[in-house]
C-alpha cells in the first residue's frame, strides 16, 4: 500500500470519528434542551403552589386528619390483634388442658370399667395389678386383702416380687395397717423403698367403714420419675372401686358356695 492510500484511509477514519462526535454533541444539546424545559415546568408548578397557599394548607390539613384517623385505626386494629392473639393463646392452653383431662378421664374410665367387668376374685386382682402397672407405672407392689377372722391384712397378689416376700399386716399397725384403719391414702415423693413394711404409697381399700384390703407400692418403674395429679386421682378411684370390686367378688363367691350347699340339700331331700 502506498503512502497516499494510507493518508486517505486515515483521513476517512478521522472523518468517521468526527461525524460520531458531531452526532453525540447534537444529542447532548437536545437532552440539555429537554431538561431545561422540565426545570421551567417544575419552577412554574412551584410558583403556582406558592401562590395558592390556602388550597395547599387545606389539603395538608385534610391529609394530616386522614393520617391521624389511620393512626387511630391502626392502633385499634393492633389492639384487636393483640386481644385475638391472647384469646388464641388461651384457647390453645385450654385445648391442651382439655386434651389432658380427656386422657385422664379415659384412664379413669378404663380403670373403673375393668374393675367392674368381672365377679371373679382372681380376675379382679389381676385387673388391679394391670392398672397399677399400666396406669400408675409401679414396678414392685402388693395387694392385701383383709381377713375378717384374724384381722390381718394378707398379701394375696404382687408384682415385681413373690407374694410371700410381703409380710401380713395387723390392722392399725405400720404404714399399711394405719392407712387402712384410718381410710387415708399414704403417699410420699420417693420413687422406691426396699423395706416391704414401708411402702411409698399405701391405698386403703374400704367399703364404707368396712376394711377390704390395701394396695402398697414399693417401687416405681425406672422411667416413672414421680407421681402426677392423675396418679392421685387413680389412687382415689382404686380406693373406692377396687374395694367394691373385691367385696362384690367375695360376696359372689360366698353366694355361689351357699347356693351349691342349698342345691345339695334340695337334691338330697328330693332324691
Amino acid at each position, binding site marked *: 500500500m502506498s503512502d497516499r492510500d494510507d493518508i486517505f484511509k486515515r483521513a476517512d477514519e478521522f472523518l468517521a470519528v468526527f461525524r460520531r462526535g458531531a452526532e453525540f454533541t447534537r444529542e447532548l444539546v437536545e437532552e440539555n434542551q429537554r431538561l431545561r424545559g422540565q426545570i421551567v415546568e417544575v419552577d412554574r408548578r412551584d410558583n403556582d403552589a406558592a401562590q395558592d397557599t390556602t388550597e395547599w394548607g387545606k389539603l395538608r390539613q385534610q391529609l394530616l386528619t386522614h393520617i391521624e384517623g389511620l393512626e387511630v385505626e391502626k392502633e385499634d386494629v393492633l389492639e384487636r390483634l393483640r386481644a385475638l392473639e391472647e384469646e388464641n393463646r388461651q384457647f390453645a392452653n385450654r385445648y391442651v388442658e382439655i*386434651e*389432658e383431662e*380427656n*386422657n385422664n378421664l*379415659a*384412664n379413669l*374410665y*378404663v*380403670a373403673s*370399667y*375393668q374393675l367392674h*367387668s368381672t365377679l371373679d376374685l382372681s380376675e379382679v386382682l389381676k*385387673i388391679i395389678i*394391670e*392398672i397399677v*402397672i*399400666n*396406669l*400408675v*407405672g409401679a*414396678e414392685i407392689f402388693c395387694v392385701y386383702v383383709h381377713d375378717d377372722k384374724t384381722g390381718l391384712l394378707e398379701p394375696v397378689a404382687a408384682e415385681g416380687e413373690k407374694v410371700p416376700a410381703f409380710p401380713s399386716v395387723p390392722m392399725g399397725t405400720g404404714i399399711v395397717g394405719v392407712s387402712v384403719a384410718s381410710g387415708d391414702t399414704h403417699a410420699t415423693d420417693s420413687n422406691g423403698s426396699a423395706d416391704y413394711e414401708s411402702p411409698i404409697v399405701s391405698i386403703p381399700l374400704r367399703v364404707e367403714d368396712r376394711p377390704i384390703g390395701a394396695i402398697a407400692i414399693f417401687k416405681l*418403674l*425406672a*422411667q*416413672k420419675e414421680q407421681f402426677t395429679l392423675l396418679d392421685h386421682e387413680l389412687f382415689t378411684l382404686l380406693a373406692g372401686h377396687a374395694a367394691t370390686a373385691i367385696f362384690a367378688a367375695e360376696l359372689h363367691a360366698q353366694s355361689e358356695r351357699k347356693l351349691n350347699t342349698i342345691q345339695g340339700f334340695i337334691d338330697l331331700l328330693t332324691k
Partner: protein
Amino acid sequence: MERHRILIVEDSPTMRQLLVFALKRLKGAEIVEAQDGLDGLRKVTSDDFDLALVDINMPVMDGLKLISLIRDEDGLKDMPIVVITTEGAKEDRDRALALGADEYLTKPIQANKVLAIAKALLKIE
C-alpha cells in the same frame, strides 16, 4: 376419608382398652385387637394393616418373637411397628428396634404420645 387399619397386640384388656381409646381419635382409624403374639400373627398375616402396636411381655408368643416373624413375611417388611413394654432400659429398646420395630413406648403410656407416634408413622398431618 382415608382409613388406617391398626392392630393392637396386647394381653392386658386394660391396656388394649386404653390404646383403643387413644387411637380412636385418629380419623379413619379401624382398630383390631389381638390378645397374644400368636393371635396377632394370625391377624396380621390374614389382613392388611397400616400399623401394629405390640406388647413385649405376652403369653403364648412374646412381642419380640412376633416382630421377628412379621419381618420375615415378604409383605410385612415395611409395616410400621410400635413396641409397648414396661421396660425402660435402653438395651430392651435397642433389641426391639434391631428386630425391626420402628418406635418404642414405655408404660405407663400416655394417650397423647401414642397418638403422636401413630400419626407420625401413618404420615397423618
